[in-house]
């Protein structure tokens, strides 16, 4: 950040000029967190995020539940990305329990994960729209997202909290005729999101509002350890689906979207490109998927791990790389589960990005960080 504070700050009488604003928790522009911003006129001179309004102690509670009953819990941090947030845990648990997953299950997982990524991004986009005062951009993504939610609902039986992935595969097979419906709706969905260009991404007002605001340079993006779309918008080519492919991603053709600018606009455009990529992946996966076969390994009722062991698994979620660190001792419950969540990692950039911005840029910068407070708080 190469910003110098307004000279007023050097004065002794600064306190008169500076006003402290509580943005949140009941604020249309904050979500479930509080950002304490200090403004000097129209400029933010200091910003202190205050998360924790949804801290529910998932990690503690995971120590009291066995490997299966943890599943509904660990998807709650990001319910609209629930497959992806569960994914590393399931992978880790599989490694600890020593399970080999059937091929078809892997494909089902990939499809579910990609669908869920789109669902997440659409919700994110909807909120981004409303943060920028674009009510249509809330409604369209929120509506088109339902196309995919409909698919997920057919697949798993729940709209958002699927509890679909289990160690050993997925809970149930695809319903009959799913492939056709899926292809049709995904194609239509892709057509729809292309429409957003005219009204949102190419809209001159949006561009002038988000271009060159909250610039996160490449070095800073790396230094802060940001991840996901934030990182890729700053020009770092890093996507775990390519770099560290899990399940069957190595058999699929995944393209990583990178932008150089690192401003709010780039950060908001990358997810949109990602969605198109996801549509591609879904189509590929539907094609390559074995047409039949088992989707779940039968487990003993209360599986146990071997001994004191730890694994760290990562997947690329809708917000970036999501890691799960599981320490097990020879019990049915994990000894410690730690979710390394992308939202929390991206939060570090927020105070640095907001400093020196105008107050009007706060919502766009904040939400372009791809931050979901519930996930950050766990």
């Amino acid at each position: 950040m190469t910003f110098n504070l307004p000279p007023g700050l050097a004065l002794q009488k600064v306190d008169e000029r500076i006003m402290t604003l509580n943005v949140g928790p009941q604020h249309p522009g904050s979500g479930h967190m509080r950002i304490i911003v200090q403004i000097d006129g129209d400029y933010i001179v200091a910003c202190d995020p205050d998360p924790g309004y949804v801290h529910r102690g998932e990690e503690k509670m995971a120590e009291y539940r066995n490997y299966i009953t943890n599943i509904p819990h660990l998807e709650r941090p990001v319910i609209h990305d629930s497959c992806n947030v569960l994914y590393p845990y399931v992978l880790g648990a599989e490694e600890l329990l020593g399970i080999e997953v059937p091929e078809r299950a892997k494909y089902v997982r990939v499809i579910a994960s990609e669908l869920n990524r789109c669902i997440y991004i659409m919700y994110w986009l909807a909120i981004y729209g409303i943060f920028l005062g674009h009510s249509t951009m809330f409604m369209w993504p929120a509506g088109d997202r339902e196309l995919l939610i409909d698919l997920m609902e057919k697949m798993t039986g729940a709209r958002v909290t699927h509890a679909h992935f289990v160690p050993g595969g997925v809970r149930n097979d695809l319903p009959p005729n799913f492939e056709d419906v899926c292809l049709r709706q995904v194609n239509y969905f892709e057509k729809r999101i292309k429409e957003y260009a005219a009204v949102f991404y190419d809209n001159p007002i949006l561009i002038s509002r988000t271009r060159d605001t909250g610039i996160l340079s490449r070095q800073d993006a790396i230094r802060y350890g940001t991840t996901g779309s934030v990182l890729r918008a700053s020009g770092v080519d890093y996507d775990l689906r390519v770099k560290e492919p899990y399940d069957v991603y190595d058999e699929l053709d995944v393209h990583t979207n990178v932008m150089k600018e690192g401003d709010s606009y780039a950060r908001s455009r990358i997810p949109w490109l990602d969605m198109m990529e996801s549509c591609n992946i879904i189509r590929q996966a539907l094609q390559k998927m074995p047409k039949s076969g088992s989707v779940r390994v039968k487990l003993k009722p209360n599986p146990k791990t071997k001994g004191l062991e730890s694994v760290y698994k990562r997947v690329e979620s809708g917000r970036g790389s999501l890691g799960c660190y599981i320490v097990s001792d020879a019990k049915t419950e994990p000894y410690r589960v730690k979710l390394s969540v992308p939202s929390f990692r991206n939060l570090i950039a927020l105070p640095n990005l907001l400093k020196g911005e105008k107050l009007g840029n706060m919502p766009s910068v904040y939400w372009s960080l791809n931050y979901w407070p519930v996930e950050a708080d766990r």
Partner: protein
Amino acid sequence: MSTETENPSADAKPEIKTPPAKPAANKPEPTPVELPAFEKSISDKIVEKFGDKVEVAFVKEDRVRINVDKENVHDVAEFIRDGLNYDHVESVSGVDYPQDNEIEVVYHIGSYTDSSLARQILVLATRAPRETNPIPGNDATRLPTLRDVFYSVEFHEREVFEMFGVFFEGHPDNRRLLLPEDWADLPPLRKDFAIKGR
């Protein structure tokens, strides 16, 4: 990277001598499971530099774990950053071991800049003494902060501080993060903090 070789350790040289800069077959991703040779070379470099001070806990595919004492963790971290090209910390997790009377703090360190390290995670673990009646911030449960080495640990260390009571010396901003402002109980992720009914 190769500047470190002028400090050979007393041990025998590691037998696997991969060229340090560009290991084979890591760029094209779809290569099947290979021996964790590259991972071994990483751990060897650390062992080479620090000798007895570090202990390599395991070398698995893509994961290397190193246990360090709390006195050396800062140096090791600096070496990991400067010498091995790792550049960010993905997660900082505390693990409570009441039977050992210690709290382990595990850093998962990754790299964005070095594409050969893209799938690698270096697990750096260190341990702080644990107190049965903790007074967070004012007891012996202390560790040096790594914030000046890896900026990205800032909020993670704050979280570990409030969840385990591990005070990070030198951290500029050791305030409460997630828990309510009036939290007066034990740090909740310790094993002796029992949640109700269990």
